[in-house]
């Protein structure tokens, strides 16, 4: 681990940038159609509750990352195996996010640029920033957070002023009963709220441990609210049928805003949001993969791993799926149920229960 400290505000900012990340553009809740906002809300609630599990584990072992305490809790071999699993998970999700980002960019504005070039530039930038360390990443986050807030505020105001929104689109609530909502919740939980598992790698850098929950809960709450707001915006502007079927509902929705011919084509704001969010999401997963590998395989300086890992992530991002459709369907079914849920919920619960039993058994 590098000797660095981040403060509560920086954690707050990083969580918001991470959560909004790519989720703000591809809103996962939309398969619940009109009740997408409910699905996101439930996902948020479960995510907030589950963060408590990660936080309790962190407070049991305030010096350790997830890799460190899974070894402490499960023992040398099982712990190592769990560590490797998480390392691969972080790397894999980083790869997926890079691919997501590239697909979004090629589909939205860069129709003629090869995916490989876009991904390569992105991973190079991420690698450059990460070689400065987590502190610089956090501080860069602070600056871009301000920019994001500015863009978000302007965009939202424009949307309101344009009068494109029609709130009756949201009614009736629960038209098809609870079924669609509940079946969407696993999706909205695992993406993006369950991905908070990656912050178990960053919590040990906090300058005051109790800030873990005090910064993370408000950050998750705020980003959840923003996601709900965006989903409502998408539905009310586009109508539920277009919103649920379009690849990037937000891009389409914002593109419709036109205020007296002066303020139009605001989709540049969406592309900006996407670039900022995508960057931080990839960077955080990349960083988590780096430090978990360094810890597992006892590499003294994780910075030596940056270049090989960049190459691995870049090439995997090209090889992970044959097409955009393939990539998305894999993300919705396979990753959600067979990877995300066990990794984000299953293993942490096992860890927590084992830790509690160990603490009960061990003589004080």
């Amino acid at each position, binding site marked *: 681990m590098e000797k660095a400290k981040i403060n509560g505000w920086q954690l707050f900012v990083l969580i918001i940038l991470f959560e909004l990340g790519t989720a703000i553009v591809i809103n996962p809740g939309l398969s619940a159609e009109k009740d997408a906002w409910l699905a996101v809300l439930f996902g948020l609630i479960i995510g907030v509750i589950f963060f408590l599990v990660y936080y309790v584990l962190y407070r049991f072992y305030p010096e350790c990352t997830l890799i460190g305490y899974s070894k402490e809790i499960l023992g040398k071999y099982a712990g190592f195996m769990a560590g490797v699993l998480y390392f691969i998970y972080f790397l894999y999700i980083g790869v997926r996010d890079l691919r997501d980002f590239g697909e979004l960019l090629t589909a939205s*504005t860069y129709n003629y640029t090869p995916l490989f070039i876009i991904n390569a*530039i992105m991973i190079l930038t991420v690698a*450059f920033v990460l070689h400065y360390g987590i502190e*610089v990443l956090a501080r860069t986050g602070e600056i*871009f957070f301000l920019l994001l807030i500015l863009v978000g505020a302007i965009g939202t105001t424009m949307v309101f002023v344009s009068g494109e929104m029609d709130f009756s689109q949201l009614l009736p609530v629960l038209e098809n009963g609870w079924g669609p909502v509940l079946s969407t919740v696993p999706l909205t939980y695992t993406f993006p709220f369950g991905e908070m598992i990656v912050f178990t790698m960053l919590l040990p850098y906090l300058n005051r441990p109790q800030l873990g929950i005090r910064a993370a809960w408000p950050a998750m709450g705020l980003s959840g609210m923003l996601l709900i707001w965006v989903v409502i915006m998408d539905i009310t502007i586009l109508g539920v049928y277009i919103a649920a079927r379009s690849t990037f509902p937000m891009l389409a929705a914002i593109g419709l805003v036109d205020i007296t011919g002066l303020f139009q084509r605001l989709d*540049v704001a969406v592309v900006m949001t996407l670039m900022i969010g995508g960057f931080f999401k990839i960077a955080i997963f990349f960083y988590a993969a780096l430090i978990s590998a360094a810890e597992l395989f006892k590499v003294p300086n994780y910075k030596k791993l940056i270049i090989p890992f960049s190459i691995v992530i870049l090439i995997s991002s090209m090889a992970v799926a044959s097409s955009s459709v393939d990539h998305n369907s894999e993300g919705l079914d396979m990753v959600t149920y067979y990877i995300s849920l066990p990794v984000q919920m299953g293993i942490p619960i096992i860890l927590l229960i084992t830790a509690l039993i160990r603490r009960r058994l061990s003589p004080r």
Partner: protein
Amino acid sequence: MNFWDRCRNKLKKLNRTENPSPEKEVKVLEKKLEENLIKIKDELGDSSDLVIRYFELGTESPAAAAVVYISGLVDDKKANKFIEESLKVEDPLKEAAYSQKDMFDIVRDRALSINNIVMVSDWNKLLLTILNGETVILLDGYNEAITANTKGGQTREITEPSTQLVIRGPKVAFTESIGTNVALIRRYIKSPNLRVETQQVGSITKTDTALVYIKGTVNEKVLREVKKRLNKIEVEDIIESGNIEEYIQDNAFTPFPTIYNSERPDAVVGNLLEGRIAVIVDGTPFVLVVPALFIQFFQSPSDYYQNYLIGSFLRMLRIISYIISILTPSLYIALTTFHPQMIPTSLLISLAAQHEGVPFPVIVEVLIMEFTFEIIREAGLRMPRAVGQAVSIVGALVLGQAAVQAGIVSPTTIIVVAFTGIASFATPSYNIAVAPRLLRFLMMILAGGFGLYGVFVALFILIAHLTSLRSFGIPYLSPFAPFIPADFKDTIIRRPLWSLDSRPRLVSQQNNKRQARGNKPSPSDNHNGN
């Protein structure tokens, strides 16, 4: 990075083994006057400006004495008075016999009465004092010399500053003389806590360097760091404060200055009062101030002398124009080449119409014009003043208008380039205003290759680089990153003086309170009723 460090260490080791530092043996003066004088002449190569004057003290059995100084460096009046008063006595020998006193003591006492003197017996030190512009008295039979500070000679008058101009504020600038500069600062701060520590840097130039700070307000950690870095400098020559700057800055590979400089005493004094440290270098009017934050370079002293609303507005204007000077050309390239759908339709049509006859893509157009602009700018700066105007006429009229008429560039490109150029002049500090000139080209190339995505990538790299910088341990982008809301009082906006009640938290870590509460002006109660 590691590779370079290793190389540097290796070089250092090599240097050390090749020429081990000569052991400093203290050579003492001879007792015989003649020998001393010959040696001085020898060492200084019998320079023509070296003045040696002989005197004979007493009439009965005259004792030989000599005065040595360098003509251009001493103040003639001071030197003559010093010599006359201490040597031209009626008959020191008689007096010596009468008072049973040593002759050396008599001369010393007399010298002491008109000037502050230092006794020197070390040979190297003696040479240094002569070269420093002091006057030396040597007496036959004594291996000690009396030296008096008669520094003087021609220096420049105090004039108005030629950089960092303000509408309202003191019209004083530092000069090339370190003594004058320290005095200028002392005139503003009449506190016993103002400390001045002088040392010499450079093995040949022996440049006087003064460290000025206010004890009790300064951040001791930073002070220690500054001293450590100044002492570490082992070079032959320091000519300007820029040389010192390059040796003591935190990160060598950056276009951004991490040390502030100013030739305005009021700006330096304001910084000292915030807990910063000034480094004054003899021979230049530009005084260094550390630690420097990014936002500091956008503050002009006049912000504090005028209405705070206007001051805040102007400050915001400067920051916006800085961002414009970095981003405009690359955004223009990105939008016209990659994202024409983001430009309002009517504007897009007129842009396309203008560009119709131009044979180059926008990126080439902008690069040509930016490069031309940089050349005109540099040429205008280096030319003699009379010719400088001709350059701007040729540049503006011939290149600008003719290029459009010849169909080489489109008029919009000229507007963009000119706008960028003007915006870059709005920054009060020259050394941060030059960074965008370099970065602009990088951003333009990325924008030409990848559109907005390229601009964003460049921004990420730029901001990550800025946040990674530190100035003597203080994060460069604070109070934005790390975010310190308490220090926002005096950054993008300047709050009214009565609410600027604390110093920047990271810069001065002790004694943060600056003024009593309740300084806000309000009409007294007497007037309220009527």
